[in-house]
């Protein structure tokens, strides 16, 4: 989980911060999210009003009790019993109604806040560029839209309210107690101070240890994840015991820390219960003496004790609420981290009415945002692809082919130079129009847990059945018709699982279906067997006849789809030409594509 990327990692000095599990948080973090409360102001007012009313009632009821005991019982009058008793009943009913009203209003408001923030987070995240997403694992993002939002909800709904109410109740009740009988009131007030102080201290320590527990749970989750995703590798190497021991160690550490937490909170809760009881003892002693001497009435003593006990919960929960506040602050800081990430890739304003698909790379440099200036992935890439032309990009592993193709639909932006479509810089085009012109079939295809149709029409929601059938045909993905519910079958992690080759063919069909002017095939056929590959290539010839194409290729067979070849070496294009031409004249090219082992052995032995 997020604990694998500590804030002090060596990357942190780069311009883009790594996700951190505990970013600096404070009241200001919460304050910045206040906008979400704005439309719930009336609800908040009702909540506050009803709560304060509740506090008033919880004070009034013991006072009625006191009147009942001191009046009718002490004086031997029966008449006021009924009205006073009914008053107590009425107040009790009113209190319940106020609580109901508050909770009813509250549930709507706090869930509204949570839902709104989640909506905005999702919206923002979808706009953030690849550079952001490659740094943040989806798990880290997920904990922000679930756990963190719950913390914020809890605090903005309950914590904040009760913080206000409890403090009010504390002050008012103490005032009432002081007024009732000063010496006893002083005892209570004196008892409250150390509790508040210690609650706050406890809360600090508690936050520290809870955080450690959280982090260690995260570590454990990471190990669980590796044990699950890597199970086949673990099995192949017979390393189950090794990983199990690793897991045990981490679980043992967590156990120890959790015990620290248990001990700490045991001490605290005990303490919280003991102090009021001690106060009761003292109040009983002094109060009884006072009643004995006639300084106060028995009714007052009873009311006093009842009122005092009503303070136990507000005081005890103060620590919890403060911990909640702390948690909510951290949570908002973590959420704000996402909101603060600027979408580095912003839409331009121009659109192309009738794009021809003339693609040009002009002196393009590229490095990833967290890389040093001298670590260019691409430098001075120049390439001109005429409308309808198809270029194969050939290069060794890690030479930057995939990166180069990602620049066209602006999944990343160039560091220097520019890329143009029909003479317009891609950065000047609106993102939707640019990404309508360009479609990519990725080597590692992403399938979503949705119907096959939804997966296919990713780039063109309005595609007709005929168009889908045609794209499926081109990509040799006819297997989708044989799925249990045909195109309506859910695929992906939560549905039918497909083989690597099937997934690639779907991804290809998806790109073809988008009917782009510029089609990018990023080594899309690597998982296909020779036979299927051949069929796909034949069909692709037709598609590429119209569209401009960039084909990343590892194999000579794929290169044959292209009109010309660009050789990418060390991040720059060194040669452009016909396949046969490059085969004959460029040894590096030949080495990349000539797969005959004995032949190439001879080549390598020759001086380069």
């Amino acid at each position, binding site marked *: 989980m997020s604990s694998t990327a500590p804030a002090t990692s060596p990357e942190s000095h780069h311009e883009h911060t790594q996700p951190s599990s505990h970013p600096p948080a404070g009241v200001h973090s919460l304050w910045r999210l206040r906008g979400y409360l704005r439309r719930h102001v009336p609800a908040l007012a009702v909540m506050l009003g009803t709560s304060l009313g509740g506090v008033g009632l919880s004070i009034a009821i013991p006072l009625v009790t006191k009147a009942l005991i001191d009046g009718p019982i002490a004086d031997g009058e029966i008449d006021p019993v009924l009205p006073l008793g009914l008053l107590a009943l009425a107040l009790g009913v009113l209190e319940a109604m106020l609580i109901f009203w508050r909770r009813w209003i509250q549930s709507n408001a706090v869930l509204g806040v949570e839902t709104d923030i989640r909506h905005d987070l999702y919206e923002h995240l979808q706009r953030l560029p690849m550079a952001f997403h490659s740094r943040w694992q989806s798990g880290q993002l997920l904990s922000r839209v679930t756990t963190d939002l719950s913390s914020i909800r809890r605090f903005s709904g309950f914590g904040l309210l009760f913080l206000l109410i409890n403090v009010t109740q504390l002050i008012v009740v103490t005032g009432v107690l002081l007024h009732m009988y000063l010496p006893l009131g002083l005892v209570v007030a004196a008892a409250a101070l150390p509790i508040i102080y210690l609650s706050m201290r406890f809360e600090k320590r508690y936050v520290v240890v809870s955080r450690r527990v959280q982090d260690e749970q995260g570590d454990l989750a990471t190990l669980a994840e590796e044990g699950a995703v890597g199970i086949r590798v673990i099995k192949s190497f017979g390393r189950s015991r090794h990983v199990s021991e690793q897991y045990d160690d981490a679980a043992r550490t967590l156990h120890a820390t959790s015990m620290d937490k248990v001990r700490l909170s045991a001490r605290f809760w005990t303490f919280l219960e003991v102090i009021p009881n001690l106060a009761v003892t003292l109040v009983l002693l002094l109060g009884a003496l006072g009643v004995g001497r006639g300084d106060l009435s028995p009714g007052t003593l009873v009311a006093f004790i009842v009122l005092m006990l009503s303070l136990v919960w507000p005081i005890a929960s103060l620590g919890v609420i403060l911990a909640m506040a702390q948690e909510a602050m951290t949570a908002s800081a973590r959420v704000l981290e996402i909101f603060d990430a600027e979408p580095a890739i912003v839409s331009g304003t121009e659109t192309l009415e009738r794009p021809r698909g003339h693609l040009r790379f002009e002196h393009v440099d590229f490095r990833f945002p967290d890389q040093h200036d001298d670590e260019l992935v691409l430098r001075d890439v120049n390439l001109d692809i005429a409308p309808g032309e198809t270029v194969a990009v050939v290069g060794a592993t890690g030479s930057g082919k995939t990166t180069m193709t990602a620049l066209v639909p602006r999944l990343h932006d160039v560091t220097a130079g520019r890329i143009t479509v029909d003479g317009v810089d891609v950065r000047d085009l609106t993102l939707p129009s640019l990404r309508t012109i360009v479609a990519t079939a990725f080597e590692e295809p992403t399938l979503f847990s949705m119907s096959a149709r939804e997966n296919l029409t990713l780039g063109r929601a309005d595609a007709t059945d005929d168009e889908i059938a045609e794209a499926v045909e081109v990509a040799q993905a006819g297997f989708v018709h044989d799925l249990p519910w045909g195109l309506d079958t859910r695929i992906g992690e939560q549905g039918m699982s497909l083989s690597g080759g099937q997934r690639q063919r779907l991804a290809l069909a998806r790109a073809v279906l988008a009917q782009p002017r510029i089609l990018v095939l990023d080594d899309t056929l690597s998982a296909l067997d020779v036979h299927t590959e*051949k069929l796909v290539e034949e069909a692709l010839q037709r598609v590429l006849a119209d569209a401009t194409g960039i084909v990343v290729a590892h194999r000579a067979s794929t290169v044959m789809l292209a009109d010309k070849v660009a050789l990418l070496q060390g991040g720059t294009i060194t040669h452009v030409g016909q396949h046969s031409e490059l085969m004959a004249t460029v040894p590096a090219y030949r080495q990349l594509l000539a797969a005959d082992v004995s032949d190439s052995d001879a080549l390598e032995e020759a001086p380069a």
Partner: protein
Amino acid sequence: MTSTPVHTSTPDPRDPGNEEEPFERASQQDWRGVAGDGRSDEITDAVSIRLRDRSRRLLGDLLRPHRTWLWIVVGIVIVENAARLSIPYLVKEGIDRGIPPIRESGETGTLYLIVGIVLLATITQAITRQIFLVISGRIGQDMLFELRRRVFRHFQKLSPAFHDDYTSGRVISRQTSDVDAIYEMLETGFDGLVTALLTLVGTSVLLLVLDVKLGLVALLCFPFLMLLTNWFRKESAKTYRVTREKVALVIVHFVESMGGIRAVQAFRREDRNQEIFDDINHQYRRANLRAFRLVAWFMPGIKLIGNLTIGVTLLYGAYLAFHGEVTVGVLAAFLLYLRQFFEPMQEISQFYNTFQSASAALEKLSGVLEEEPSVAEPARPVPLDDARGELTFDAVRFEYVEGVAVLPGLDLQVPAGQTVALVGTTGAGKTTLAKLVSRFYDPVSGAVRLDGIDVRELDDETLRRCVVMVTQENYLFSGTVADNIRFGKPDATMDEVVAATTAIGAHDFIVALPQGYETDVANRGGRLSAGQRQLVAFARAFLANPAVLILDEATSSLDVPSERLVQRALKTILRNRTALIIAHRLSTVEIADRVLVMEHGDVVEDGSPDDLIASGDGRFSDLHDAWLESLA
């Protein structure tokens, strides 16, 4: 402040006014598509409050080692509650018996005595509570530790076939959210429940002891409490289920759209995604709202019953006191007890939620733990110290789906040290054959033998030492590149690691990484290309030095020069070991001593590559021609 999203006043689907309107969009099921129900393990069948047998068995199993301590805890908790409950009673005594002597003669001895006892009760309560919390906490943590361990180990033991079906996502959530749910219950719910129950029982008894009439009136609330709680329990079980379903939808959609953000952006999927997300986000909110509103009825309901009880008791108590039938002290004690009585009731709503998620979690975990590995460890393993690597398939039949044989009855003999290439179309059974050797599956009938010993008779450790499989899946574990390579041989020296990477041509790219061999793949691993990851996986396998090496499409992501390097390395590396190589690309076949062409689970051609090509009319020779053509 500027970057905080601003709310516009334009109408949006999140308007809280629409709350109660049905929000089921027709499109919902459309995009999700249809899937068989068997795969879903969300609680589709009602989570009943009764724990199922296997959950109970697991719970009993986990509790058993702590039996003695549990009894001690029970003893302690009873003492603690007795001490706690005695305090209001003592207050009553203080008022009724302590005050009169003072009034009459100024004699304070009785009062002091009672106050002394209260003090004693307080201290007893403090000490026992502390002990209770620590011991029950320890028992809980020990159980969790044991549960975590068991579940992890069990998942490790279960066969790949199980994992294929179960998917890693579910394996992970079993070990995270499910265990956390149990943790939650142990941490908060347990203490609350025990206290609530003991308070309930203890208070009732005390009230009756204090004054039967008044006590009976106070206990009139019982049936109402029962009704309310029962209603709440049933309703919250329902809402809980819906909430879980909805949150699962939110999570899946969120994780997938963020994980696949590249495709999302490249295909302008943002708007449709947002539409879907808003829909399920809203559904989740509605489900939550229902749950919250349930509590909004329940909590004030309890409060109402409590207040009415207190009011009626007060009224009746005052009446009785007026007639001298009860004392002021008794009335005071009643009021204190009733407060204590209703407060824990409020926590029950909290407890139900944790209890429900915990019991659902326990249900799923116990289900997993009772899953038997389909590939079982032998009871009496046969020792095999130095495998030569001879493989025999003896009438091996295998089927994934009953009745549909992938391998109908394969007979095959691979002498030690031979390099065999498996060729054939998808579905011919090549991978299945490999997985039988590495015992990811067991044959339905027949036997696979290593050096004449049925692989089912070898213990896992021995088999894995002898047979290693490298697949397309190049999973890298968190840690450094070197750690990942050492995964094949944990005690390997750095020299051995470098030797392995050099042999397959991975050394150069590794030293070019920011921290060389010490580069953390978790942070930068995303930037290792598929080919580079494959090279690391190769190095890992070579370092493991097995007698039998299986390569299943292991070079598919490599570019030609890397593949060539790997192949050249293979020539030396495979010299003294048995190898099964599966590849779509025929280039790999060149280094094989023998080629097997498979079709529908049978070997249709068998011979040295040269012989097969020379024959000129076989399938392999055709394939080879086609391949040569593709290179031109």
